[in-house]
């Protein structure tokens, strides 16, 4: 049974890594769009 703790930690670490990276990418996209919008005065394309 204590082994299940390692399994749970592994699956949680995987979910956190994938979800965290995706959130970070969305943040980077938002910042890049804002920077472009500030410089050009119009929202960046996708």
């Amino acid at each position, binding site marked *: 049974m204590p*082994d299940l703790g390692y*399994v749970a930690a592994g699956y949680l670490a*995987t979910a956190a890594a994938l979800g965290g990276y995706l959130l970070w*990418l969305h943040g*980077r*996209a938002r910042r890049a769009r804002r920077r*472009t919008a500030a*410089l050009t005065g119009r929202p*960046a*394309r996708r």
Partner: protein
Amino acid sequence: MKRSERMMARLTGRRGERVLAGAALAGLAASAGLSLLVAPPDATQGEVQRLMYVHVPAAWLAYLSFTSVFVASVAYLVTSRTRWDRLAAASAEVGVLFCALTIVLGALWGRPVWGTWWTWDPRLTTTAVLLLVYLGYLALRQMADSPGRRARWSAVLGVVGFVDVPIVHMSVVWWRSLHQAPTVLRPGAPTIAGSMLAALLVAVAAFTLAWAYLITVRLRVGRLEERAATQALSARTGGRPSDGQLPPVVGVQGRAAPDA
């Protein structure tokens, strides 16, 4: 536009991204169900062996990412097209994520099975070197002062660094290792029970879809960041190229701008 380019554009478009995200989510949910509820526990390792269904796909995707860096780097060196540099950068970043995850999951598996989180075993050591090589690759991309030079230097490292990938895979065959030998990617039939192999293959497919989705999103972020950098440079130089150091995204026909 070529047919392959049209297909790629469709896949990396917003709609393609959503389809990939949905497929990856469904695949990961199915894989979690199979791995945690359907596949039997291992006869000797017990429940902890279920970590295989995330550890092996993570390792496979690290290999796939670094292979993608290698192919894109060779293509960049041959064609000087910035899209290859962008793909190499995206693949390296995603590869580092999966390589680090492989090491963390391996440590979680090693503690109850081997009695230690880490040991200087050939497989573990070569994997740690692999992670360091591609962390160096990402650091190099931050250091180079001109986009053309950055792309060329990183392409060279992307080709040279790939040498470690086959070494990692063969390390358990070439040297005496605590890590188990390959059970699926080996000459002859896989040495793994059918139900476990099925769960593993579903996990590999689901994680590969998640990888494709992450690469697609990372490519879009790369394009947005390049556009923002181009605008910033253009604003600084009053809209004129002042020193030939324009980001590659504004190069002629997608080719990298020349170095200063």
